[in-house]
């Protein structure tokens, strides 16, 4: 009898999807699920058409409109000519190649990474790709999920496979339990603050430990979503009963005996106890406080009860220079209390934080400030991640809590996270945003983004500044 080498979850996912590992070639992996949207697919379809190649498994691809749609109207023309052109191209391409599309106003329409999980398109033990770097979100289910470029979108269309070099593995263990009021967003921002914005380049990260196991599926998605923000190829959480309970009964999920068989297989996915990782990082959950970014990459983050750092705080010359540049762009002075930073815009949404639990959390804070409204100096918008989220929130009356307090309640889409539609910030605007990137110009030329949790964003809308909700 042979004893098998202990494997990490990533290695198991790799092995079960390896179509071929030919000498001299990059390994070929099978892709179970392909999500597409209007921005990164048109050139891939054009090449297929030019070379007269079909989509090999159209039923394994699902399309949604999310990136550049209006959040004020379901009309395809509402977000301008360029957007409408891409949206119409997606309609035409999906029709021609036989791909199911959730177009404007469809009950299943939503941000790809919100829609996929809620419909049961996201399953443990699968490989999921999308022409979008936040595809790592689906890793919350124990799926190997990552963003790809348009050439790769074309490769998946034509072959249902992808060539990938094997990544290194990193285990990030969050021990113990987080304190009251600390969200999944705070956990992932704290991790990125520790690793720096490129700390996991070349790695697939597995998040584990009590604090991760205690998270709901939506919270795990928030954590995995931002794996790319410290360079990771993908983020993973081992599937458990929380996962199986979430998946069961969803529209596209397996049913009956097939589901039972699937669960039996999924239970074998978790990393073997003695599996060896290339790198290990351990955090104590109790040390994690509410986080706010101060700079222009997600690694430039501190606790809300802290101060804006100074270039002198960094020994690495590149980090020192980055801090200097970031303070200049962000118009911040070292030493300023984070709670003294005034914002004039608030955005609650994006594939990181636009699910029902995020909206409930934000609404909970609004209710805590009973009777108070969004301060006059702030414009605050709430953009649910999908039509299903929107419907659920409205059924619970969350929309009324928000609109009564002076927030705008919008239609689903990627919206101000990247500002491809008209939800853009102006020069000098300072935004508390529940999105994932605080890059220069990301939300609009000259605009300043502070990444925060939905709770922090809601509090900032009402008070006009960041708040240490636990003090």
């Amino acid at each position, binding site marked *: 009898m042979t004893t098998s080498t202990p494997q990490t979850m990533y290695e198991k996912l790799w092995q079960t999807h390896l*179509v*071929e590992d030919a000498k*001299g070639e*990059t390994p*070929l992996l*099978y892709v179970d699920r392909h999500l597409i949207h209007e*921005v*990164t697919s*048109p*050139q891939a379809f*054009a*090449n297929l058409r030019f070379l007269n*190649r079909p989509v090999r498994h159209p039923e394994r691809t699902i399309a949604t409109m999310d990136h*550049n749609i209006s959040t004020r109207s379901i009309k395809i023309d509402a977000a301008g000519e*360029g*957007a409408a*052109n891409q949206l119409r*191209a997606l309609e035409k391409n999906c029709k021609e190649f036989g791909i199911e599309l959730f177009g404007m106003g469809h009950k299943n329409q939503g941000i790809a990474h919100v829609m996929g999980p809620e419909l049961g398109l996201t*399953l443990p*033990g*699968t490989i999921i790709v999308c*022409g*979008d*770097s936040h595809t790592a979100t689906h890793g919350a289910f124990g799926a190997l999920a990552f*963003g*790809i*470029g*348009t*050439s*790769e979108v*074309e*490769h998946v269309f*034509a*072959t249902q*496979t992808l*060539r990938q*070099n094997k990544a290194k593995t990193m285990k990030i263990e969050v021990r113990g339990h987080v304190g009251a009021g600390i969200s999944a967003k705070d956990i992932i921002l704290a991790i990125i603050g520790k690793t720096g*914005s*490129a700390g996991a*380049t*070349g790695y697939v990260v597995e998040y584990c430990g009590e604090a991760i196991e205690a998270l709901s599926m939506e919270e795990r998605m928030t954590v995995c979503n931002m794996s790319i923000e410290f*360079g990771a*190829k993908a983020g993973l959480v081992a599937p458990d009963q929380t996962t199986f309970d979430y998946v069961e009964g969803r529209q596209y999920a397996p049913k009956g005996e*097939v589901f039972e*068989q*699937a669960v039996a*297989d999924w239970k074998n996915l978790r990393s073997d106890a003695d599996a060896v990782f290339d790198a290990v990082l351990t955090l104590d959950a109790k040390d994690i406080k509410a986080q706010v970014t101060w700079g222009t*990459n997600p690694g430039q983050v501190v606790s809300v009860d802290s101060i804006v750092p100074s270039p002198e705080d960094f020994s690495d010359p*590149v980090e020192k*220079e980055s801090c200097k*540049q970031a303070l200049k762009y962000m118009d911040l002075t070292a030493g300023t209390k984070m709670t003294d930073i005034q914002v004039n815009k608030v955005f609650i949404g994006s594939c990181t934080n636009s699910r029902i639990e995020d909206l409930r959390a934000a609404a909970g804070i609004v209710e805590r400030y009973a009777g108070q409204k969004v301060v006059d100096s702030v414009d605050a918008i709430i953009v649910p991640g999908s039509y299903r989220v929107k419907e659920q929130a409205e059924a619970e009356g969350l929309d009324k809590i928000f609109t009564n307090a002076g927030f705008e309640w919008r239609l689903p889409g990627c919206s101000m996270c*990247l*500002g*491809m539609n008209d939800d853009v910030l102006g020069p000098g605007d300072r935004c508390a945003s529940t999105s994932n*990137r605080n*890059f*220069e*110009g*990301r939300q609009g*030329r000259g605009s300043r983004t502070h990444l925060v949790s939905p709770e922090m964003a809601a509090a900032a809308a009402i008070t006009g500044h960041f708040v240490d909700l636990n003090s």
Partner: protein
Amino acid sequence: MEKFNTHSGLVVPLDIANVDTDQIIPKQFLQKTERIGFGVHLFHERRYLDHEGTQVNPDFVMNKPEYKGASILLARENFGCGSSREHAPWAIEEYGFKVVIAPSFADIFYGNCINIGILPVKLTEEEVEQLFKLSAEEVLTLNVDLPNNTVTCGDLSFKFSLSEFQQYSLENGVDSVGWTLNKLDKIKAFEAKMPTWQ
């Protein structure tokens, strides 16, 4: 895809770390359904003083007259991080760059470059620092030799590496989709063994 063998060209030193793909090609230029028209918007926010892109920023390194016609981009760590948009390497290619040199690249960007025929060269921090120092003294011309995996400049010679298939693909301009389509029997055999739920 065009074959890549050797390349000799002028170097633009872009002395900024963590250059993300939003900076390389901002979102407002992603609304095309064609693969052309991105080069003019490369580094838009840095290259132009106004949002519309009518006033060239004379202080931005790429706009300096001595770097006109440059075809090698010298960059700092974590180049190409963030969004997976292939529009970023499309813009870099269309502007006229054939090679990007950096101490580290974001994974998706690195793969996207290879898939469209741009050579991403990973050198050590020290080697990149040396090239930045030389660039500060004079406009550099580098010789990049893919078959021999070298970057040379006068007496200086640096080695770099790619995975075997990436090297082969670039050198031969491999149609990666066509290559894989020749393996359909393997893919079908794999599919035949997949569990029902998958």
